[in-house]
């Protein structure tokens, strides 16, 4: 059972309540595909991912980025039960999508950088710690059903 301090809970709720899910999702996924190009292996049917500009302009990337962020929302709304909340998604990522769980950390790092650039100095070290802890818990939950 993950223990969240009041500060951590408040920080996560605050960040996501102010977030533009579509924009952040799009930018985080696109950044991941550019910075860690091997992640493109999971998106063979997305069409043109040939260079950074193509990736950023690709509507499937934008749409999927939003899907991922809205998926994260489930954890935001169920912080005390993230493992159970993501049981199905974990099975999906393992059995159907065959995603190497290391990729969860890569996307998390890109998401951290996008949120950092949006929040600026408001993204203090303590806020960063809370945000990265949240994403680590999400990653662990998504990894749980792998075998």
């Amino acid at each position, binding site marked *: 059972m993950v223990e969240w301090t009041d500060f951590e809970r408040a920080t996560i709720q605050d960040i996501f309540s102010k977030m533009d899910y579509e924009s952040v999702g799009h930018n985080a996924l*696109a*950044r991941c595909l*550019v910075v860690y190009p091997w992640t493109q292996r999971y998106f063979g049917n997305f069409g043109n991912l040939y260079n*950074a500009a193509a990736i950023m302009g690709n509507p499937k990337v934008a749409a999927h980025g939003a899907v991922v962020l809205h998926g994260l929302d489930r954890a935001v709304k169920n912080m005390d039960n993230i493992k159970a909340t993501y049981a199905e998604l974990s099975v999906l990522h393992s059995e159907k999508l065959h995603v190497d769980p290391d990729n969860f950390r890569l996307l998390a790092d890109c998401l951290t*950088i996008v949120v*950092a650039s949006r929040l*600026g100095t408001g*993204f203090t070290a303590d806020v*960063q710690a809370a945000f990265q802890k949240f994403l680590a818990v999400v990653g662990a939950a998504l990894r749980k059903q792998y075998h």
Partner: protein
Amino acid sequence: MSLTAKDVAVVKALWGKIGAKADDIGAEALGRMLTVYPQTKTYFAHWADLSPGSAPVKKHGKTIMGAVSAAVASIEDLPGAMSQLSELHAYKLRVDPSNFKILSHNLLVVLAIQFPSDFTPEVHVAMDKFLSAVALALSEKYR
């Protein structure tokens, strides 16, 4: 994953923009690392004050960025340029090389905060590659 000519150009351009802010960036990255990854504090148990913004953190952030700036200047031969620092980290400091990745991540976060419009995905990948190359050069003498 070696640095292309484009990577080199991008890194040097960003470094040019960073200019005098380098010391502050180093201090902030170090402070974030100690807060977000508390296990890294084990290397600094000899400091009186490990809080972000403290004197030892500021001083050491400056030291680190000085070395990274030197690496940018000698980007064509990182193993050569970092040879002495590699010996220091290998024989004396014995920092587990996985921590280089952690500091790099925090440097990228600070760059994203301070240069939001410049730190595009293309700049991000070039900087990530550069810092990985620096980390590799730093690990050179370990075994």
